[in-house]
């Protein structure tokens, strides 16, 4: 009688091949139907969570969740989608104090209140932390004084009265990150750090990846505009 089977065959091999096939079919289905986007702080990655309490000039400190800004249906070129410009800062960081003026100007130009800006609205926000450096002793009262540019509040920002910082009072929200939770989640190496985020929550630009590039230039080059040939704000 003709031998049509292998005497040395083992059911374990047959079982392993079948089960492995099942496993790879599962992976192939996932690979074919999804395009996962890694969460991170580099361009092209999904912005990590940013939660806490925020102060926006009135109503005290309220619950903040960055995720509420995202529109998963936003598509490239859609000018109605609102972008986010996020600054990680410390009210006692001298460079953050100096850059407060740029933040004032940029927020005024791109937050939708400037009729000369024909691009998408950019929502500005700042996450205020307290770095582990001698002399950096922040508080919510100091964050409020810095944001509102309150004169003679008794709060000191980088050695000077918070009310004497450059620029006008800010109109955008400040998030309390004194415990550095958000800063660690975003792996922020130093302050100030800036992130420009698309309406769908994907990071479009970060200052750490583009050293030397001005944040205003990044907004002008990346944020969706009604027509490409229109000049800047």
């Amino acid at each position: 009688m003709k031998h049509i089977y292998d005497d040395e065959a083992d059911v374990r091999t047959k079982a392993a091949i079948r089960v492995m096939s099942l496993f790879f079919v599962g992976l192939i289905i996932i690979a074919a139907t999804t395009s996962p986007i890694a969460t991170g702080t580099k361009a092209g990655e999904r912005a990590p969570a940013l939660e806490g309490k925020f102060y926006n000039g009135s109503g005290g400190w309220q619950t903040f969740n960055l995720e509420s800004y995202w529109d998963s249906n936003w598509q490239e070129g859609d000018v109605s989608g609102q972008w986010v410009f996020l600054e990680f800062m410390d009210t006692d960081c001298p460079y953050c104090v100096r850059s407060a003026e740029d933040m004032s100007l940029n927020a005024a130009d791109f937050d939708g209140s400037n009729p000369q800006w024909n691009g998408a609205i950019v929502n500005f926000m700042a996450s205020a932390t307290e770095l582990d450096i001698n002399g950096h002793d922040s508080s919510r009262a100091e964050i409020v004084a810095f944001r509102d540019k309150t004169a003679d509040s008794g709060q000191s920002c980088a050695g000077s009265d918070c009310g004497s910082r450059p620029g006008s009072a800010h109109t955008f929200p400040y998030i309390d990150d004194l415990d550095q939770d958000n800063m660690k989640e975003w792996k922020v190496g130093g302050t100030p750090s800036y992130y420009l985020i698309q309406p769908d929550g994907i990071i479009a630009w970060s200052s750490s990846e583009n050293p030397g590039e001005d944040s205003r230039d990044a907004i002008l080059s990346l944020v969706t505009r009604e027509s490409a040939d229109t000049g800047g704000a």
Partner: protein
Amino acid sequence: MQFSVSSLERVQIRVVLDMDSNIQLLIYLIPTLIGMFLVLPTGRVIASSLEETLPSFATERGRVLSGLLLTCVAGFAVSIQTLWISSKVSEGGNFCASSTVFSCDDVIGNTAYNTDPIFGIPWGGIGAAVFCVLLYLAYSTSLEPNSTWVDNYLKLGTALTFGGFLVIGLLVSYEIQMEKICQYCTTAHIANVAAFIGFYRLMKLNESGEWNQES
């Protein structure tokens, strides 16, 4: 440069997302519960009426092995689904988001908890790989139940599923912290519990000498 998901992918996402996620969950939950019922001593109740159609149900070993295989397949499938959900959530889609305590998107999509703390592998991927190993152990045993290696395979299966309890404990602690429950993850946890019962009962049956009893 802007980053976006293509239109075709958006259509694919919508087709799946339009289906009720809790109805989809039943596809995995029902086989898992049937499998659990079969591996328990109570499985004899339904198995006795199906003995003529499914002869393997006539023996305790056959019933438990059938339940174990069903549980492992369901556990593997629901793990693959959770891996798929985590990929979809990362794209910005919603699959089972809810304002109630049952919101698997919030659990699977939470980047602080949705991967293992050592290698960063998604929990769904780990679950799929483990259930494949369990399926291999159970399937090999069912194909050649009197081989010398069966004893070791049953002990290994029992140990692996017992180790799964530690992982389940960790994941449930995450859910408590988030104050959310992931239904899909819970189904995979039930499958692990059922698989542990199955492997443990088979191991004991093998040791007792009643392994080859007719009924």
